[in-house]
């Protein structure tokens, strides 16, 4: 059973290759159609990605997308569409930054506290959607969209100087105050390139945990089973409601972690300029990575690359939006080619099943009977 399957190899390789070629061709076509040099922007991006500081930016962004996408993915694995990762991420970053700035603890404890607060905040915020769904039947799609908007208001209120926020003298920004150095997560210094956030490695480790929990634990099996067939899972002994709530909590917790690389590694405060839209991009990243930890890693890397490598486009006179068009085209090209390859693969598999069945059955009833 373990022999290397040539078909499988070809099928495995065909998807990405087909997708890459298609998206490349389409991007070139778009550029040509608008009278721009079709190759130069791509060359510029590749060149840009050759620089160490851009590479650091890409790696750091990958970690952020990775965490947020894991949060989305765990929902998808259970047929839950958590559009609220964005809100959970923002609220968790804000609250944990507040707590982090307010306390003074020795190093690891300080960091641990911040991380725990972030996870708890994200989980609680997502848990609201979970509870509304399990007790009141409210679609999580609707409730998380609403909670995203409510997050904005809640954060805006919390961060007012008269509540919990701080307005640094001379600044027009609002922050949560600086986290003391004991609460900074050490990174890896890349010299000229800057620092790789230490939390990026936590993100990668969580990918392994994600894989292990999903594929090697009873809980993960139950979760996947619920995602594949809720009715079958229920009959197999899974408490679907509990599962929904648990999945939402985990998803929210992971979303809460998505703010940690920046908070602990760079800004050390939550301010009005804290990055937004991470949660929305993560939906695409997760779907493109087919909710698989390795797939997500690649798609997070791809998105980070497109984001960061494009930073020199506008300076060179090319509209930056090319990257967004490329992102859209790549997503479509990837999923369509995977589908085409999958169809081919299924056909192959069924063919094999059929052949073996036919071979097995033929012996049994070969004698002819007449009436």
């Amino acid at each position, binding site marked *: 059973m373990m022999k290397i399957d040539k078909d499988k190899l070809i099928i495995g390789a065909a998807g990405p290759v087909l997708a890459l070629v298609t998206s490349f061709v389409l991007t070139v076509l778009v550029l040509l159609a608008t009278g721009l040099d079709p190759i130069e922007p791509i060359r510029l991006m590749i060149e840009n990605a050759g620089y160490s500081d851009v590479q650091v930016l890409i790696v750091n962004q990958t970690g952020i997308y990775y965490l947020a996408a894991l949060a989305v993915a765990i929902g998808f694995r259970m047929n839950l569409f958590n559009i609220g990762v964005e809100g959970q991420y923002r609220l968790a970053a804000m609250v944990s930054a507040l707590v982090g700035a307010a306390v003074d603890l020795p190093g690891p404890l300080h960091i641990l506290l911040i991380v725990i607060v972030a996870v708890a905040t994200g989980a609680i915020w997502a848990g609201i959607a979970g509870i509304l769904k399990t007790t009141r039947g409210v679609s999580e799609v609707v409730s998380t969209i609403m909670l995203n908007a409510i997050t904005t208001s809640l954060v805006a209120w919390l961060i007012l100087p008269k509540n919990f926020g701080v307005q640094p003298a001379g600044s027009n920004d609002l922050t949560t105050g600086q986290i003391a150095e004991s609460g900074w997560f050490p990174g890896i210094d890349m010299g000229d390139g800057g620092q790789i956030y230490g939390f990026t490695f936590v993100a990668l480790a969580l990918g392994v945990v994600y894989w292990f929990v999903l594929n090697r634990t009873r809980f993960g099996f139950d979760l996947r089973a619920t995602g594949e067939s809720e009715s079958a899972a229920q009959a*197999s*002994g899974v408490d679907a409601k509990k599962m929904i709530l648990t999945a939402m909590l985990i998803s929210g917790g992971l979303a809460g972690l998505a703010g940690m690389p920046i908070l602990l590694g760079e800004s050390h405060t939550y301010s009005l300029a804290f990055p937004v839209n991470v949660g929305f991009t993560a939906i695409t990243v997760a779907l493109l990575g087919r909710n698989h930890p390795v797939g997500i890693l690649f798609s997070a890397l791809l998105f980070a690359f497109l984001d960061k490598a494009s930073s020199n486009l506008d300076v060179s006179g090319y509209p930056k939006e090319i990257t967004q068009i490329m992102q859209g085209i790549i997503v479509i090209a990837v999923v369509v080619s995977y589908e085409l390859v999958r169809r081919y693969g299924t056909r192959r598999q069924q063919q094999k099943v059929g052949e073996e069945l036919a071979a097995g*059955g033929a012996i049994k009833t070969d004698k002819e009977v007449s009436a």
Partner: protein
Amino acid sequence: MNASSPPAVELHGITKRFPGVVANKDIAITVRKGTVHALIGENGAGKSTLMKILYGMQKPDEGTIAVDGDQVTFSSPGDAIARGIGMVHQHFMLADNLTVLENVVLGGEKLYGIGAKARKKIQEISDAYGLGVRPDALLEDLGVADRQRVEILKVLYRGAKILILDEPTAVLVPQEVDALFDNLRELKSEGLTVIFISHKLGEVLKVADDITVIRRGTTVGTADPKTATTKQLAELMVGSELPSPETRESTVTDVAMLTVEGLTLLESGASGAPLTTAAPADPSVTVTVHEEAAAGRKLLDDISLTIHKGEILGIAGVEGNGQTELIEALMGIASPDTGVITLDGDDISKTSVRKRREGGIGYIPEDRHRHGLLLEAPLWENRILGHVTEAPNSKRGILDPKAARKDTERIVREYDVRTPGIDVTASSLSGGNQQKLIVGREMSHNPKFLIAAHPTRGVDVGAQAQIWDAIRDARREGLAVLLISADLDELIGLSDTLRVMYRGKLVADADPATITPEQLGSAMTGAATGRLEGTEEQPEDGDAR
């Protein structure tokens, strides 16, 4: 019928290949006008495929179709409908959230519109054939028999002259079957042609004018219903003897394994919200008993029963009379309002599904696709499903894929699951093989008590025999079984004790040694209650399947 008139349908040299399977191979069939023509053959013989070709749903690779003497090519069912062909499919082709009227007029809106005129027409047909269909009922509120009638009405509404009925009787009780046959005869007398597919050979002999047998995708012969016997037909079909569910030597002990007392389940008002985005609540899971009362209706009404070690208790009943709810209550999926369930001396009324399964309940669900399998997961993961906490699947919360795979291979071997490997998805197995996998899985954990719901529904005769054997063997070792089946022969043949369920109540009981399917059938419609006394004389087609 006029001998000179061309045949209603003439299929010639039909060949249809699916990836890896030749479903039809050079098939030729001639159907005379104004007759009932039966098509029989084992599972996967290619009957449905052939009919789908005739109905324009699938294109033949080779061969010709002639209708009323004209050569035709159909590129969609629409073309076939235009030629007066109608088909009632093996699986219902109905939309739950549409009304009966909408289901009927769909696709045929040009005929009578979709409003009052259509409603009148439906009423007319319904009255003419005594179908008793209510045009404005929502389909999901209907039971299986009603659905079957809607399917037939759909065909009649389009003025079909040629009716294809693919296993229309699989879900009906004998009385319903009789009623259906009355209809068929009436249709025939009006000059309509009927092509009829069934696995129940007794029925076939009763109603058909001609019989064609196909095996492994090709016609192997025809039979004359006036002279042929079910035994002959069976041999034609499978080339060997039919298996029988008979189990006579009793292994019943007097140790109670499962006792149920006063189980009552009320219909809950606020159910039906889908729990996840992609899986809308399926109303068929809780098909309702048809009663006037609204909220708080009793789905299970004071059910009490005891199953002993080594005993098979069969429950007969028209679908939708609470069998599903009973199973769900026993499994712990539904929580009953009152009642006590005891398994091997332990009160399990309040324990979770998982605890019950760990405690020794095995479960062969009635709908294997919805409740028994993860269709897109490989076989070895399906082997884990339902027993994830038990050896060899996991240890201390951690899965043991290696052991699970090894055990899957054992099941595949021991239960003769036809598959190229344990890494293929469950969906790529045929229904019979899927069922064998489930049976193998449930038996592998040495259950004390097995719930077997329609264990052989739609399953190949060969597989049927294996499944029956598996149940019998386990019973001999002291397994208690709750058997629910629409196949009355199976029910009578396998059970040690029989109970009849009607409107959520156990209304009658019977001795399987003496009862006939007809008597059982009438009790199932509520016509008889209490202790059913069987007559000694065997009905002529009692052993037929």
